[in-house]
C-alpha cells in the first residue's frame, strides 16, 4: 500500500477527496434543508447504470465521459420519480425506493454483462460502486476541480434565489421567480456533486457525503451562509482525513472510511455543539429544572406569608408544603435562595422572604397570569 502511494499520488488523492467533500458539503446544505436527503440517495444509486451504458456505447473509460453518462442517468431518475408521483397514486417515498433500486439493478445487469463480454478494456468499472481513490490521477482531479468550481460559482451567483427557494417556495413563486427552473438547477448541481464523488466514495455511500456535513454544520450555527461554509470545511476535512486515515493501516477501504469520518463529525456536533447539542440541551434543562424547583419553594413561602399581615412573615421549614422526598433537597433550595438574598433565616430557625424576594414573587405571579 505504502509503496503504491508515493507522495505525488497521495497528494493527488487527498486533493480529490477534499474537493469532493467540500462541494458535496455546500450542495448538501440545500438538500438537507429542503428535506430531500433521500432523493440524494436515490440519485446517486441511479447514476450507476449511466456509467455502464456510456461504457457500452463509447467503449471509453475516461472519467469525464462516464460522469456525463452518470449525470444524465441520475437526472433522468429524478424526472421519472416526478412523473410517477404526479401521474399515479404512488407516493413519493415508494417512487424513490423503486427508482433507486430498479436503476441500480439495471446498472448491475450492465456491469455483469460488460464483465462477461470479451472486452479487454472493461476492468475497473465496478470501482464506481464503492469508489477507488487509488485510481484517481491528476487529470481526474482537474476535472473534479473544474466541475466543483462551476457548481460553487453558480451557488454563489444565485445564492439569494436558492435561499428563498429552500425557505419559502410559494413566496418565491409569488415573486414570479422561475421556481421550476431553480429546482432544476439545484438538482443538476447535486447531480454534479454526486458524479464528482463517484470515483472517490462510489454510488452507494455518496448520499452520506451529501447529508453528513450539512447535518453537522447545522448544529453550530443559525445562519445559512455560515452553515454552508462550515459544511464545506467539514466535508473537505472528512475527505482528506478519510484518505490519510485509510492509508495508515492495511485493508481500510477509503470510501467507507471517508464516510465514517463524516459521521464522526456529525456525532461530535450533535453532542457538543453549543446551544443545540445534546449535552448543551441537557445542561440547560437541568439548570431550568433547578430554577423551577427553587422558585417553587419561594412561591410557597410567598403563599404562606400572604395569609398573614406581612409578606415577610417567617415560617418554619416543616410548614412549607412543597412535597420533597428528602428534607435535604428543600434545605438545599432554601440555602440557595438565601445565597441569592431572596430569603433569610430568623433566629428561631424560621424562613422569611426578604424585600427582594417579595419583589421577585410579585413578578413571577404576574408572569404566570400572562
Amino acid at each position, binding site marked *: 500500500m505504502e509503496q503504491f502511494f508515493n507522495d505525488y499520488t497521495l497528494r493527488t488523492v487527498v486533493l480529490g477527496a477534499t474537493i469532493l467533500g467540500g462541494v458535496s458539503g455546500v450542495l448538501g446544505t440545500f438538500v438537507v*434543508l429542503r*428535506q430531500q436527503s433521500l432523493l440524494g440517495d436515490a440519485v446517486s444509486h441511479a447514476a450507476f447504470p449511466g456509467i455502464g451504458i456510456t461504457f457500452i456505447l463509447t467503449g471509453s473509460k475516461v472519467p469525464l465521459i462516464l460522469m456525463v453518462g452518470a449525470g444524465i442517468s441520475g437526472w433522468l431518475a429524478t424526472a421519472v420519480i416526478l412523473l410517477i408521483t404526479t401521474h399515479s397514486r404512488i407516493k413519493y417515498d415508494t417512487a424513490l425506493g423503486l427508482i433507486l433500486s430498479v436503476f441500480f439493478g439495471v446498472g448491475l445487469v450492465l456491469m455483469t454483462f460488460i464483465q462477461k463480454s470479451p472486452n479487454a478494456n472493461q476492468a475497473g468499472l465496478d470501482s464506481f460502486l464503492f469508489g477507488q481513490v487509488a485510481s484517481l490521477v491528476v487529470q481526474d482531479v482537474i476535472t473534479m476541480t473544474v466541475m466543483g468550481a462551476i457548481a460553487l460559482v453558480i451557488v454563489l*451567483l*444565485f*445564492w*439569494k*434565489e436558492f*435561499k*428563498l427557494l*429552500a*425557505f*419559502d417556495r*410559494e*413566496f*418565491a*413563486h*409569488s*415573486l*414570479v*421567480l422561475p421556481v421550476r427552473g431553480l429546482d432544476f438547477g439545484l438538482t443538476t448541481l447535486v447531480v454534479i456533486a454526486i458524479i464528482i464523488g463517484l470515483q472517490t466514495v462510489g454510488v452507494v455511500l455518496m448520499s452520506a457525503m451529501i447529508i453528513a456535513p450539512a447535518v453537522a454544520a*447545522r448544529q453550530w*450555527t*443559525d*445562519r*445559512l451562509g*455560515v*452553515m454552508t461554509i462550515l459544511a464545506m470545511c467539514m466535508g473537505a476535512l472528512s475527505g482528506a482525513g478519510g484518505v490519510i486515515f485509510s492509508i495508515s493501516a492495511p485493508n481500510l477501504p477509503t470510501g467507507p472510511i471517508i464516510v465514517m469520518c463524516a459521521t464522526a463529525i456529525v456525532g461530535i456536533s450533535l453532542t457538543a455543539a453549543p446551544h443545540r447539542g445534546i449535552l448543551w440541551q441537557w445542561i440547560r434543562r437541568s439548570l431550568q429544572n433547578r430554577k423551577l424547583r427553587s422558585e417553587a419553594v419561594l412561591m410557597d413561602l410567598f403563599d404562606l406569608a400572604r395569609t398573614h399581615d406581612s409578606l415577610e412573615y417567617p415560617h418554619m421549614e416543616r410548614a412549607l408544603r412543597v412535597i420533597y422526598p428528602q428534607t435535604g433537597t428543600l434545605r438545599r433550595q432554601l440555602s440557595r435562595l438565601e445565597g441569592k438574598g431572596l430569603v433569610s433565616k430568623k433566629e428561631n430557625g424560621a424562613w422569611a422572604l426578604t424585600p427582594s424576594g417579595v419583589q421577585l414573587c410579585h413578578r413571577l405571579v404576574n408572569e404566570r397570569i400572562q
Partner: protein
Amino acid sequence: MQSAVEVRDLTVAYRENPVLWDVDLDVMPGTLMAIVGPNGAGKTTLIKAILGLIKPAAGRIRILGKPYQKVASSVGYVPQRGSVDWDFPTSVMDVVLMGLYGRLGWIRRPGQSEHQVAISALKKVEMDDYSDRQISQLSGGQQQRVFLARALVQDADVYLMDEPLQGVDATTEHAIIEILHSLRSSGKTVLVVHHDLQTVTSYFDEVLLLNIRRIVSGPVSEVFTDENLRHTYGGRVAIIKNPA
C-alpha cells in the same frame, strides 16, 4: 373606477372536484376585505389562484387591470405561518429582505438601502429589536409579524394575507390590525383570510363570504348578516359528485 382585484367566473379544481366554483369578486382600491368561510371553503385557494400559484380550470383574474405576471411587483403576499420550516437557519432580517428579492433582480445582493427599508418595516411591526434573531426563537405572534414585515417591504398596492391573525397573541393581533388599517388609509387594497367571525365587524370594511361558491360580498354592515352566515356555514354541503 378600476378594480384593484377583479375575479370573474373563477373555477379551480383539484383533480376533478371543484374547490372554487364560478366565483366573481370585485375589490375596489383602498378596501380592507375579509375572506370568511368554513374549512375547505377555498379561501386559501382563492388567494393562491389570484397570485397565480394555482392554475384555474376557468376564469379570469386581473389585478389593477392586468394579469398577475405583469403586476407581481405591486402585490404583497403573506402566506400561512405554518407553510414554512421555522427551524431554517436564517435571521429575522434575512426573511424580511426576501420581500425585496423580486425587485432586486438576479444576482444582485441586498445592500445598505435595502437594509434601511427592512429596518423601517420591522419598526412598523415593533420587531426592530429582533432583527438579528434566528427565526426559530420567535413566538408565533412574532413570526407572523416578521411575515407581515416581509410583505410591507414589497411596498405593494395590493396585499393578500392568508390567516395573519391565526394563533397570535392579543398584542400582536392589535398591532397587525393597526397596520392593516394604516395600509388601507394610504390607499392600499388588503384581502385577508380570516377565521374569527367575532371580529369581522370591528376590523374590516368589506367581507367576502365564501363556501366554494361566493355566497355574498360587500360592505360588512350590509352583507355580514345572520342569514348570509347561515348560508355560508350551515348544512355542510357536499362537493359536486364525479360524473364517472
